[in-house]
């Protein structure tokens, strides 16, 4: 344990509970030192497979909830989709088993100084970090409107909890199985107008974040977009999670989602170019631009 230093810690934690939540699992872990440093939008990076594991990379999850103290010491909660062997292994951990936790990592959501109207957009289980954010925003006197989106009913997360967290809640599914039928790009512009939103906070995949950033811009609102918490190292060492973003100086640089993000200003990310090194990027070479 590395308590006492600023920044993230790596702790030998303990799995406290694993609960199903629709198509997802809700993991609660004892991880002293993480909760105390948490701010909404930051993430944890978990080792998978145990000490004899052949898995060399960690898995990143946005933090859903923390409790700074209690009977077990500080706890941290995340929501995962068991879609690959690493997350499936985590989802199968019995209560009481050890878990290697690194966090909190990354740059959190920026909070407004004034009590403004905020629209929070969450896609699937990526909505998880919006709940502690909503709490902080309400503490500051902000009005919170939430849009939860997903492919279908099963892929939604937190629809019930959202009623407590937000003044208005809108649910949108692409197949129309619950809420309005449509994607974020279809329903967000209306919501921003009705809510008179000054700030848009979004968490989800690149297409949803792009749609949120675009809708915010058209509406004249700021946007804070959280890209998926990166796998890999989580600490900025591996340079595996880079995306092109425009800096204050107007230059595009390849920035790391784990350290410069995962929350970016929506108007800074070159969403159409994610996964590439655009030719006008600082330091781009013709060979690299592939």
């Amino acid at each position, binding site marked *: 344990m*590395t308590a006492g*230093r*600023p*920044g*993230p*810690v*790596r702790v030998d934690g303990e799995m406290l509970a694993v609960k199903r939540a629709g198509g997802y699992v809700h993991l609660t872990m004892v991880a002293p030192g993480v909760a105390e440093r948490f701010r909404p939008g930051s993430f944890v990076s978990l*080792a998978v497979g145990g000490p004899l594991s*052949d*898995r*060399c*990379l*960690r898995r990143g999850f946005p933090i859903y909830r923390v409790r700074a103290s209690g009977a077990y010491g500080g706890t941290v909660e995340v929501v995962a989709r068991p879609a690959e062997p690493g997350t499936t292994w985590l989802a199968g951990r019995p209560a009481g088993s050890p878990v*290697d936790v*690194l966090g909190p990592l990354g740059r959190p959501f920026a909070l407004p100084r004034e009590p403004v109207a905020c629209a929070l957009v969450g896609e699937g289980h990526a909505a998880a970090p919006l709940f502690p954010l909503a709490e902080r925003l309400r503490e500051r006197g902000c009005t919170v409107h939430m849009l939860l989106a997903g492919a279908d009913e099963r892929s939604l997360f937190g629809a019930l909890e959202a009623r407590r967290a937000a003044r208005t809640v809108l649910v949108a599914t692409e197949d129309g199985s619950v809420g309005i039928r449509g994607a974020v790009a279809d329903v967000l512009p209306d919501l921003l107008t009705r809510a008179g939103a000054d700030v848009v906070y979004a968490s989800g995949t690149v297409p949803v974040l792009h749609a949120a950033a675009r809708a915010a811009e058209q509406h004249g609102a700021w946007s804070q977009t959280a890209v998926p918490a990166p*796998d*890999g*190292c989580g*600490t*900025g*060492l*591996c*340079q*595996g999670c*880079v995306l092109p973003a425009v800096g204050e100086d107007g230059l595009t*640089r*390849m920035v790391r989602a784990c*350290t410069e993000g995962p929350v970016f200003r929506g108007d800074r990310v070159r969403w159409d170019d994610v*996964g*590439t*090194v655009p030719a006008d*990027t*600082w*330091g*781009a*070479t013709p*060979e*690299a*631009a*592939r």
Partner: protein
Amino acid sequence: MTPDKVDLSCEVGDLRMPNPVMTASGCAGGRELAPFLEVADLGAFVTGSVTLDPCAGAGGRRLVETPSGVLHRTGLQNPGLQGFLTGELPWLAQRGARTVASIAAGTLGEYAELARRVGNSPGVRAVEVNLDLPGREAPARRLGEDPYQAGKVVAVVRREVPRGIPVLAKLVWQPGLVDLAGAVAREGAEAVVVSGQVPGAAIDRATLAPSVASGTVSGPAVHAVAVHAVWQVHTALPDLPIVGVGGVRTGWDALELVLAGARAVQVGTAALHDPGSPARVVEELRAELGALGIDSVARAVGAAHGQGVSR
């Protein structure tokens, strides 16, 4: 013997270190590791490779988890010489790190300029030459695959770097490794950094196309390659200082490389999994030696080659 009695100090040319555990180039950034360890506590800190101009790195997928390893293709993203000299380097110097600056280039002229500027910068204790790039003058092969080209690069770097600052040539395992090591040593390299990394590729399950078509595998998967490579070079060139790198996760992994002939080791991929691992390996190596009753790591260097260790 109690571990605190074990002498871990070591020398690689004129690079004197309190212990033989270094970071591996490209897997470490000082500011990134700082929350988890003191960079000054490591034997040395090897920077990510610096190129003359800023480099945005590779597009597309950069990192794939493979069995017991990581397949990577980052394209040497770095802020360039100027960014390094005004950013990472002074930070490391201020923290008391023994900095080994890794340099990478495609031409002899670029290597010369990098070597001169980096080698004369306060805080740099050694220069590591990354030869893992295609030479722009003979682009068919990586510089580090051709003893003649690799030797020329090292000669140029050695000429530009002041005396007292050792030049380390980094070589990856290949059939001609021993000839390469001999060539760079003849041209003035005080030591070779012998890496177990191997080429690799991976296919994406969703698209059925390569996620990384041509990358590098590192991590525990290649540890035995590294032990073999160190063994080979030490057998052929017993007086040439070797730094071993490849899949070191534990103190025993480090000691294995030492017993095969390495005076020092580097920790790379393990730091991606556990950023505190380089410091942990120092303590585990100390404990391993203590438990074996070996009072100094220097005595273990190459000991597996038959003469054993006097305890």
